[in-house]
């Protein structure tokens, strides 16, 4: 499988990364080089094989359902590029 220029634009948009028109060809060839490299996997017989979901077999631990953290808006906002009155500031999203 390989990608065309339209697909590169589509996945860049899905990934929310702006890509200049001039970069599309270059990105396309890089992505296709990687896709050609992983193509080898189609040779493997995977019939009846379970996909790996847990690297080391272990039971997912459960904890008591109670609040263990939070209540510190100043710390949450400490690294925000733009804040106002204890909130993150974003461009207008509702008309």
């Amino acid at each position, binding site marked *: 499988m390989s990608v065309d220029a339209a697909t590169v634009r589509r996945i860049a948009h899905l990934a929310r990364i702006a890509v200049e028109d001039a970069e599309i060809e270059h990105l396309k060839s890089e992505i296709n080089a990687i896709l050609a*490299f992983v193509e080898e996997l189609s040779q493997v017989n*995977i019939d009846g094989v379970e996909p790996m979901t847990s690297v080391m077999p272990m039971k997912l631990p459960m904890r008591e359902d109670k609040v263990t953290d939070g209540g510190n808006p100043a710390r949450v906002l400490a690294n925000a590029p733009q804040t106002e009155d204890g909130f993150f500031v974003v461009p207008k999203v509702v008309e």
Partner: protein
Amino acid sequence: MTELTSLTLTEARDGLRAKKFSAVELADAHLRAMENARSLNAYVLETPQKARVMAAESDKRFAKGDARPLEGLAIGIKDMFATEGVRTTACSKILGNFTPTYESTVTSQLWRDGAVLLGKTNNDEFAMGSSNETSAYGPVTSPWRRKGSNAPLVPGGSSGGSAAAVAAQLCLGATGTDTGGSIRQPAAFAGIVGIKPTYGRCSRWGIVAFASSLDQAGPFARTVKDAAILLRSMAGHDPKDSTCSDKEVPDYEKAIGKSVKGMKIGIPKEYRVDGMPVEIEKRWEQGVAWLRKAGAEIVEISLPHTKYALPAYYIVAPAEASSNLARYDGVRYGLRIPGRDMIELYEKTRAAGFGKEVRRRILIGTYVLSAGYYDAYYLRAQKVRTLIKSDFEDAFRNGVNAVLTPATPSSAFAIGEKSGADPVEMYLNDVFTVTVNMAGLPGISVPAGLDASGLPLGLQLIGRPFDEETLFSLGSIIEQEAGHFEPNKWWAA
């Protein structure tokens, strides 16, 4: 007196306990060495004030007879670990001047045990790379040079800064993270010891996430024993990481010097790859001979899915990365480039903040997870991963205690040599290490000698899940036989 920076971590520990020097003196000696080695670019942030405060506290503890296991030992921390009040960027522009308000579990355990922070070490951006050339702070220059050449070499990656700092004696030990070989490959290039423990041995909490099912933290040090001492403090249960094991952490130091008589060592025939340099093969055979001499039994084994590990990795790791890195949105922390609306803000911020390699991996990951391609790529790769793991399980079931392989397919290469048009060329560096992450197993890289150009080569030992002790026992045999390797200090003014 010998220079304090040339001591091993174990020797420094003993010297501090015997009050031959103070923790402040030890920290100052390292801070001076760091200043003189800035041309290597191993550290992206030096923290001299913090180091002296921590060291002074250690000296108080020594005076009171109240010393902790790592009291006063000066170390470097890879910039992937969140350190409270100390800038943490994963060497990416997108994190800007991010200063965590919390401490990663692994580093908090090192401080709990008395270690002293010297600074944050350089790495490939978001740990994506095998040469430390993708860092937003620029490449690290290896302390090693080829005989008769001044050409700057890479220290390996992604933990290149930590490896260079340990090899150049700019710290007694350092932390790393390993997703596909990022501890073991730079350790091999730098002529030092690096161990990636079993998945779940160290908590991932507070470590900048790359590929969550592959990422593990581990130590770098100049001796196997030093690495064992550091790992004991780094490992252990953490309720904040649901994949972190609650198995007790053994005293790894006790595994050093333990007999390996009767142990079964597997030699996987699939690791004899085409075009493997003769010197790598020679080192491997040498390693076999050393372990045999120590009483181990050598058996040839087959890990038939080895050649699929790297392609499967280049689906699983970018897929998980694309998901993990979705958090960099220009809103909550780090870089922000304004836009007319939310989408434009995201797109511009992420275009400006991510470097080329990171962008490439996010795009690949987004593609393999997108509708219509998920089964063909991601699901298939996760099934192949099950097969890779069962190859190892078969070998272990047949009594194999550990597997011996080369750590890397070559010695260190020059800066710029492999950053050309084809990204796959760089990816091939991880061919021997990546299987271990795919299977979640522990792996250690131990220096095994120098090649004809005078550069270090490493051997890798792969162990059973949570059997790091066997790796330390076997690793110390290789270390005794091969000896230690130090670069010439050409950078010192």
